[in-house]
C-alpha cells in the first residue's frame, strides 16, 4: 500500500490532535468519555488519511462512487451527532444553571433576613 505525503501529513495532524485531546483530558478540560470519542475520531482520520484505499470497500458498501463525497457525508454525519450531543448537554446545563440561580436567590433572601433579625454587636 503506497503512502503519500498528504497521507503522512494527515497522520501527523491526527497524532497532534490526539496528544492535545489527551492533555485536555489530563487537565480536566473535557470529560473522559467525550475525550475518548474525540481520540477515536482522530485515530480514524489519521488512519484513513494514511490509507485512503481502505475507504474503497466502505464506498462500495454505501454505493457512493466518489471517495471525497463519501468522506464529506461521513464528516457531516459525525458533526451532526456532535452538535446534537452538545445541544442536549447545553440544555441540561441551562436547566441546572436556572435551578442554581433560584437556589442562590432563596439562600440570599434567608441570609438577608437572618442578618436583619439578628441585632448587630455594636447596638
Amino acid at each position, binding site marked *: 500500500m503506497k503512502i503519500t505525503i498528504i497521507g503522512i501529513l494527515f497522520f501527523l495532524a491526527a497524532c497532534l490532535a490526539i496528544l492535545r485531546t489527551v492533555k485536555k483530558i489530563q487537565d480536566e478540560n473535557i470529560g473522559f468519555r467525550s475525550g475518548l470519542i474525540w481520540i477515536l475520531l482522530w485515530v480514524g482520520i489519521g488512519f484513513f488519511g494514511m490509507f485512503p484505499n481502505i475507504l474503497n470497500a466502505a464506498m462500495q458498501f454505501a454505493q457512493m462512487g466518489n471517495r471525497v463525497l463519501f468522506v464529506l457525508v461521513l464528516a457531516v454525519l459525525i458533526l451532526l451527532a456532535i452538535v446534537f450531543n452538545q445541544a442536549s448537554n447545553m440544555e441540561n446545563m441551562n436547566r441546572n444553571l*436556572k435551578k442554581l*440561580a*433560584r437556589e442562590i*436567590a*432563596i439562600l440570599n433572601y434567608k441570609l438577608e433576613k437572618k442578618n436583619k433579625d439578628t441585632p448587630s454587636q455594636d447596638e
Partner: protein
Amino acid sequence: MPDKKIIAVILTAYNEEKNLGNVLSEMSDSYVVYVVDDGSHDNTRQLATDYGSRVVSHPINLGQGLTALTGYKTAMLEGADIIVKMDADGQHSPAEIPKFIEKMEKTNSDIVVGSRILGTNYASAPFFRKTFLPVYTWLINKLTGYQMTDAMSGFRAFRASSLRRVAKVLDDMIEPQYMASEMFIRFAKAGLTVTEVPINMGERKTGTSYKGFIRYGWGVLRAILRTFLDKEFRNTKNS
C-alpha cells in the same frame, strides 16, 4: 377562635419600577407580600424593599414561570397557608384577592384561578387574547378534565398544603416559562381541584409586556407536548 391564616401574595416583577409602587400601595397589611425580582436592571428591588415587601432576587433573568416558582417555594418555606400569585404590572388588582380566599374556603378547592373571561371588562380585551385564549383553554380542559374558562390567567391562588404535596412536580417542571399548561396537566394528574372567580384585567399603566401571542401559543403547545413526553410524568399514577 381559629388561627388566622397566613396569606402570601407573590408578585413577579421584571423592570417594573414604574408599576410596582401602585400595586404595593393598594396591598392590604394583612398579607405577607413577596416581590420576586427577576434580575431587574431598574429600581424594582429597592422600591419593593421601601414598601416593606419581602424581596427575593434572581441573580439573572429567568422568566416569569421560574420567578413564580421561586415565590411559591419561599412562601411555602415560610409557612404560608394560602399563596396568591399576581403580576406586578398593575393589570391585577389587589382589591380582588379576598374573592379568591373566599372562593377557596367556600369550595374547599386547591387552586382558584382568576378568569378574565368571566370578568365584566372582557369585551374590551385585545383581539388576539379574545381569539386564542378560548382555544388554549379548550385544549387544557380537554387534557385535564378541568372546566375552566381561562387557563392562562396569571392571577391565581393556591392552598399551600396542596402545593406542598406537589412540590416535586413544581421543581421538575420542564417548561416553566409557559407554566400554566404544564402546571394544570400535572396538577390534574395529582388530583388537585380547580375553581374560578371572575376578575377584571386592567391595562398596564406604563411599559410593555414581554409576551407575544404567537410565541406564547407555540410555547404552550411545546409545554404540553414535552409534559406528555416526560417519562417521569407518564410513570406517575393518577391520584
